[in-house]
């Protein structure tokens, strides 16, 4: 964000505690010092308010980055982020775009309880007019964030509290990662595992275990949900002839179901087994640590699904 803000004076950051406190999760550390209170702005506890205000300023040509302390809190801003931002360009006949990045932590964060553990991609990916990026590692976080900020449409950038502490190589130099371009995290021949965001790590863990049992998995990290990189996914399934989708949202009408549907439609003759999905169980995120792990997609569930589609169960 700071690199982009140095490059483009139209960009500013607003949200709860983003300035003085350096962000509730210290994501904006040092930004107030560098850019001052004009461009890094603390907001009252009023998500609908500052989301709506960001829309107005974007219509005037600014490029706001709106931090939701948690995407769970974006639910009270549903009207501006779903009913205004993704439709403004359409409803104004092309006159007013909304180049806004809405960002924050998404998904179960580690015993935050059910009201603070929303996987909003399950809800929001249904809405056209917006884009959704969901990085799984620090390298992607930088490259996708730069693309998100430069994008002329509203982008929902879903971070994960659980991934904030992971380490990875991030080059100092400039790079961007295009939207709709998946990464193959692990090559394999027996089964394609499609995932994005935090569950990619569960998929990698499962693939590691399965490799020891002689099952070779190809793990695809979608990186963005809207747009989705169908080309990479279909090509992989045509090679492995089996597919498991791992998605941390609830299963009903989720991005994971969309992948299952598209793969079934486009790779029907290539599949040796119907596509299986691994989701969070249909209960609110539990507070208890053991139950939270149990509710989320986890390596155990993924391994079971892969064994089923590869007839190794």
């Amino acid at each position: 964000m700071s690199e982009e803000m140095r490059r483009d004076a139209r960009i500013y950051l607003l949200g709860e505690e983003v300035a003085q406190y350096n962000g509730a999760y210290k994501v904006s550390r040092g930004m107030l010092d560098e850019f001052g209170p004009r461009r890094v702005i603390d907001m009252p506890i009023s998500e609908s308010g500052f989301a709506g205000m960001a829309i107005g300023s974007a219509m005037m040509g600014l490029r706001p980055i709106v931090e939701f302390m948690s995407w769970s809190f974006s639910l009270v801003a549903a009207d501006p982020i779903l009913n205004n931002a993704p439709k403004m360009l359409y409803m104004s006949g092309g006159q007013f775009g909304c180049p806004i990045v809405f960002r924050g932590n998404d998904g179960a964060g580690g015993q935050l309880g059910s009201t603070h553990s929303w996987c909003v991609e399950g809800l929001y990916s249904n809405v056209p007019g917006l884009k959704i990026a969901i990085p799984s590692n620090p390298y992607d976080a930088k490259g996708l964030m730069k693309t998100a900020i430069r994008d002329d449409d509203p982008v929902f950038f879903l971070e994960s509290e659980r991934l904030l502490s992971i380490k990875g190589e991030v080059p100092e130099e400039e790079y961007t990662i295009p939207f709709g371009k998946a990464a193959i995290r692990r090559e394999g021949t027996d089964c394609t595992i499609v995932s994005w965001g935090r569950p990619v790590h569960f998929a990698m863990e499962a693939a590691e275990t399965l490799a020891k049992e002689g099952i070779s998995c190809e793990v695809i990290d979608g990186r963005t949900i809207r747009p989705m990189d169908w080309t990479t996914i279909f090509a992989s399934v045509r090679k492995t002839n089996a597919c498991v989708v791992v998605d941390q949202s609830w299963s009903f009408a989720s991005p994971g179901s969309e992948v299952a549907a598209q793969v079934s439609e486009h790779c029907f003759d290539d599949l040796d087994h119907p596509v299986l999905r691994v989701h969070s169980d249909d209960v609110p995120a539990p507070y208890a640590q053991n139950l939270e792990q149990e509710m989320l997609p986890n390596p155990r569930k993924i391994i079971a699904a892969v064994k089923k589609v590869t007839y190794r169960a």
Partner: protein
Amino acid sequence: MPTKTVFTAEIQYLSILNEHGKFDAKLGKDVIPDKDLLVLYEHMVRCRYLDEVAFKLQRSGRMGTYPQNMGQEATSLGAAYALNKDDWLVPCYRENCGLFYRGLPMEYILLHWMGDERGNAIPRELYCTPLAIPIGTQMLHATGLAWASKYRGEKRIACTFFGDGATSEGDFHEAANFAANLDIPVIFFCQNNFWAISVPGKIQCSAPTVAQRGLAYGMDCFQCDGNDIFAVVKTVRDAAKYARAKSRPVFIEAVTYRLGDHTTADDARRYRDQAEVDMWKQRDPILRVRQLLKERKLWNDSKEAALKEKVEKEVHAAVERAEGIAAPSRNDFFDHMYAELPEDLRLQRDTMQTHSLGEVLEESGVRSQESGG
């Protein structure tokens, strides 16, 4: 320690040309020169006639739901006149007169209510945002627009319009809170027409004025006779001067009345007393200006007849232009979904399949047909 008063406030109500046509020469001095008053009068008459025609278009199936402006012409018009040409007008949906004064051709409004998004493609140089049909959302947008002006070091302010009912929405309270706390030059212009569709003002706000809602957020608040174009112009002009100079928000409550139904989908006779409507008809913003113009020897019946003929011609020409615009095609609705159309939406458009990705272009033959034809 005895108790002490820590806050007192009062709300000033301004009236210059009252409902009986009496003009306060002192307060009204230099508010609107006669030549401009003639222009404003013409705008109100034209807007009123458009209302009549639009109502008939809806009843005869040539237009969708339409909200008549009747009775409220002076509010948005007075504001548009008092503001700079490049200050933002951020309307809800009953501000035709102000939008037309700003320069929006009538066919845009007609096209919009005929159900065509292109009616909302308001030219950027007019500094008007699209009509906002959900109640209250535009107040936050206005606050953001004015915030962006301040950010860029411009002197542009924003004026957003809404009704008494919208002040019950959280959006109003959040926008007011931001504007006041962040020193944003935005005018909150409430058109208190006493009815939120069928819900009377008393249920929206039990305080004696809507204006005092702004006091709670620490902004200056004023009330004026919204059917008095002079009072509206003076109030908005003073508010704009203050907002621009001090970079502060202002709340204005213009007391007016919706003489027509909420929209053509409503029948106000079911919930309003005819006596109340009749009383407000006497307070019509157009009547009192006509009377004043006549008193000043600027107007007479033959001028009135000529004006009627002129606006009829203009309105019917606008209807013709709006109806002459070909309906949008299915392909068009993908045009403004994204700055650049993503691949999956492009496939939906090109294959006419919305239920899924559809076929790839080569397989469905769409691409070869297109290149062949």
